């Protein structure tokens, strides 16, 4: 049981960090960013290139992933989403744009980084073995701790910084925030950049553990959507809760249901459908939006 909990916490920390970026973008702009998974993949490949190809320290790769994805996010918001939102009031316009960006990024990643699975060496060696009750490699523990630290840093930033407060105001009521002097365009771009940066950071962190490949983008987006559906779309605490809940469900299911075949995600999806039928706004979302 200890091992299941440890696996669940580790998975939950990385999932929560993935979901945070997606929910931030949704809360600020009401945009479902279907390209979030591809941004995660791009972040992983940037770290791989910096560390694996150029031989630079891991931290440099991580910073490069954060910066490049922040720039990509800012560009996507300014040059793609902003004009579309200005010209079209229909939600599906941004959905189609996001899906188009996902396909575009897939093609770019294939062209630039190729089709192969990539990875970088472990950043810490050794395995924690607590009397065979918990076996956890030190690099996973480190990545889990870093993910939790980043989540904490993000919450503090949103809570106490001027930009964080402005983005929260935007998320609560866009028009009221504008009337109070919040620069909507600037903070929308900053929010999108921050969301993309979080995706890139997780990709960079996990390239040391799971590696990265072209095909990870779509499934990562699907999991991120599941997490924010569980926690409540557009709610920061909901994304964190959703991430940890999904991580724990996956860990418990994969261990306890292994004898019955690959039914863990079947059970998770069935549970999610029942849950959403009862509480469509998620755990912490508001029914009115």
């Amino acid at each position, binding site marked *: 049981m200890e091992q299941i909990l440890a696996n669940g916490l580790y998975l939950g920390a990385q999932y929560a960090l993935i979901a945070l970026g997606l929910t931030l973008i949704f809360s600020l702009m009401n945009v479902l960013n279907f390209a979030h998974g591809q941004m995660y993949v791009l972040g992983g490949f940037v770290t791989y290139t910096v560390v694996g190809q150029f031989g630079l320290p891991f931290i440099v790769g991580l910073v490069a992933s954060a910066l490049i994805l922040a720039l990509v996010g800012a560009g996507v918001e300014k040059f793609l989403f902003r004009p579309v939102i200005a010209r079209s009031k229909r939600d599906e316009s941004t959905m189609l744009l996001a899906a188009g960006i996902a396909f575009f990024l897939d093609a770019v990643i*294939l062209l630039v980084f190729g089709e*192969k*699975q990539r990875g970088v060496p472990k950043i810490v060696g050794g395995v924690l073995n607590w009397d065979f009750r918990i076996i956890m490699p030190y690099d996973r523990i480190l990545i889990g701790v870093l993910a939790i630290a980043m989540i904490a840093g993000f919450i503090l930033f949103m809570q106490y910084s001027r930009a964080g407060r402005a983005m929260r105001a935007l998320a609560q009521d866009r028009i009221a925030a504008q009337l109070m002097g919040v620069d909507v365009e600037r903070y929308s771009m900053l929010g999108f950049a921050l969301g993309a940066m979080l995706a890139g950071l997780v990709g960079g962190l996990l390239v040391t553990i799971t*590696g990265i490949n072209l095909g990870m983008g779509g*499934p990562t987006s699907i999991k991120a959507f599941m997490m924010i559906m569980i926690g409540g779309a557009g709610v920061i605490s909901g994304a964190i809760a959703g991430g940890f809940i999904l991580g724990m469900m996956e860990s418990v299911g994969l261990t306890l249901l292994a004898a*019955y*075949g*690959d039914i863990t995600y079947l059970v998770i999806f069935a549970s999610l459908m029942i849950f959403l039928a009862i509480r469509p706004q998620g755990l912490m979302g508001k029914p009115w939006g």
Partner: protein
Amino acid sequence: MNRRTVIRSAALATVIGLSAASFASAENPVLKIGFVGVTSGPAAAWGISNQRSMETRAAWINETGGVRIGDTTYDVEIVAFDDQKDPKRAIAGMEKMAQEGIHYVVGPNVDDGAAAVRPVAEQQGIIYFPYAFPKSLYQAPASNAVLGMVANYQSGPAIYKYLMENNGVKKVAFVAANESDPLSQRDGGIEAAQALGLEVVSGSVTYQVDTTDFTPVILPVIQARPDLLVLSGVSPANAPQLIRSARELGYEGLISTETAQDAGVLQEGAGELANGFISVGGASTPELASDMMREFVARYTTMFGEYNDESNTKVYALEYILETLKANPAAIGDVEAFKTTMDSFEAPNPYMVGDAKLSYVGATSFGQKRQVSVPLVVNEFRDGAFQTLFVAQVD
């Protein structure tokens, strides 16, 4: 030389060059060979290595004057179609090949795609070389599919037997992705292991193909304490992660698969934890590779920036098509002539040292010769490279 003369000379050289190029390209008629497989999405690695192998070989042939079939020398053109691992797209791809007048196609890469294109191939007179294992594709009344590699039900028993005799393996566990190909390979592996007298201690654990953390997946398998862990039909993307998770959980037994892998991917993803990992390879290990194989690897690397070890098993299909057409030029537009030639065809295997031959096999497994004879090369990964563990022949 003044500026005007330089410009005139350059213009003249350009005109001559363009004329020569158009003359050269017009000199040889074009022989189109198709490829229908997956070159995008999560399984892109399967098909891209396939397509690039064909394109490398075609460019090489064309650069050296073309391929002579009967009295005609052809340039080879590869017509590729991405089926996105979708059977409906695979059918569309095969129909496109028919519209282009193509009679020989490599692919599809997976079981359901290979099964889906069968009616089109048979109606349109196309011989195709799938990388898929269902026996029904190759057994009569089917006759247009030719298995392009060694099947898991052929390599698995050879590997298990070798490990029983040389490593004392008694207990085996299987883990597979929850997809048709890996699951059918797992079932075939379990059957073969049991037939050899091995105890299967775990055979029901599967994982989603998009899994990124395999520790929870592999934990119950390791707890069954197998001597050999078989990663059935594992993709190159998942293999390093599975190996790493198993080793980090303290598993010290053997790990094997019946699919081809890439040494660079294993090294990057699992490092020294992948040492000892057994997989099926081709002819590129130093002990087996001929000069031609080495040149193929060099040309592939020049064309695409990096070689993919999966291509060791995928270099053969185009060679078989061209060599069979050379043996019977009438087959160039008549697949029935091709089928007739397959029964007696034999040519030197240019990619291996020694006296290895290209020929069609499969009579034992399928009741007819519907498989390319490629050597069953079983590799062991060690310190970033593959080493040949043993070589065998199927059928």
